[in-house]
């Protein structure tokens, strides 16, 4: 079961919190949508600090982060 976290338009630190919640649920992969570089870096840093794999793709209106265990 994969999860999708749509954090576009949310301000700091909500994208990170929402992603953290999804990671804590333990279902991977998690697809996180963000629209600023700040959110991309914050989400990436948080996920990597929890030893998750993070792949970033640019999407139409921001970035898509794929987080896997």
């Amino acid at each position: 079961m994969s999860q999708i976290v749509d954090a576009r338009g949310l301000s700091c630190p909500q994208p990170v919190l929402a992603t953290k919640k999804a990671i804590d649920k333990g279902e991977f992969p998690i697809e996180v949508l963000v629209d600023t570089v700040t959110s991309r870096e914050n989400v990436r840093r948080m996920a990597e600090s929890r030893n998750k794999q993070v792949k970033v793709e640019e999407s139409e209106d921001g970035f898509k982060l794929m987080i896997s265990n």
Partner: protein
Amino acid sequence: MSQRLTQFFASRWGIILAGTVIGILAPLLQKLGNPPNMGICQYMRPEIIGFVLGALIAAYAFREFKPRVGSAPIVRFILGVFAMIGALAFLGCPWRAILRLAGGDLNAIIGLAGLAVGITVGVQFLKSGYSLGRSNKTYHSVGWIMPAIMIGFFLLLVFRVQFSGGAIFFSKKGPGAMYAPIFISLGAALIIGFLAQRTRFCTMGSIRDIILMRDTHLFSGVAALLVVAFIVNLILGQVKFGISAQPIAHSSHLWNFLGMALAGLAFALAGGCPGRQLFLAGEGDGDSAIFVIGMITGAAFAHNFGLAGKPDTIVEGVVKVGGISTAGMIAVIFGLVVCLIIGFSMREKN
């Protein structure tokens, strides 16, 4: 190259660099004529203008200028007003609290403790689903409003424009009349604005991230600022340890604490300290721009209605403890109540 730089700025060394540069520049600006322990702040100073424009340049250089608006602007306005009323009860934003501490003003410890408590309360709201909602993409011109206002301010400042009614009033005495040479201040602030936009330097975030997820990334930047500013102050002979009669500060502990608790809560609910809001406004965030306008309004309220703190004074060799007026106390308490209502009532149900 651009990618490499982005990676560096996002790293721990990047944020430490930002803190270090602020820590060097702020005490130097004091040496050059800015008010003591107040290297960077206040209304319509070249520093504020430089922060926004420095962030604007950085955002354009790295293609991060993203005009966006629509995340509960009226709430952000109110948070800006009360954040400023709280900060002025203490006589300083978080940056100045750190600079005051770096100059030996131990009242700043109480202010920072208040700030941390306010942020802790804000974090509880964030954990229980508090959200101001999403912003939306908007037109380029909208993202330019705050930078354009700042350019306008700069022109007014440089040419010292006088309107027929007498405005703009430039302070003739007091901290408002003290300043380092305009172009040096502006240059320093442009550098800081650029670095802070790249590294997302934020004092409120530094405490919030530790409480929320044991993340010390932003904190390392703030710690670098404190340590470096202290060292530079020592070199320049600007350190004076003490509690009473510190420069532009009062030692009314309860109100230092509560004022900054209000500010911390408002910053946490709005997602950034005043510095961060200015940098975000520079990269096109119209909601942060509204927060900034709220802060300016709050400052006008505080100064016109006597809500701001009065510094300690020395009368015939005796220290007279300053503090805030009854109206100021009521404003701080009222602000805390309003922020709590915002925190409780704006939680998304799961």
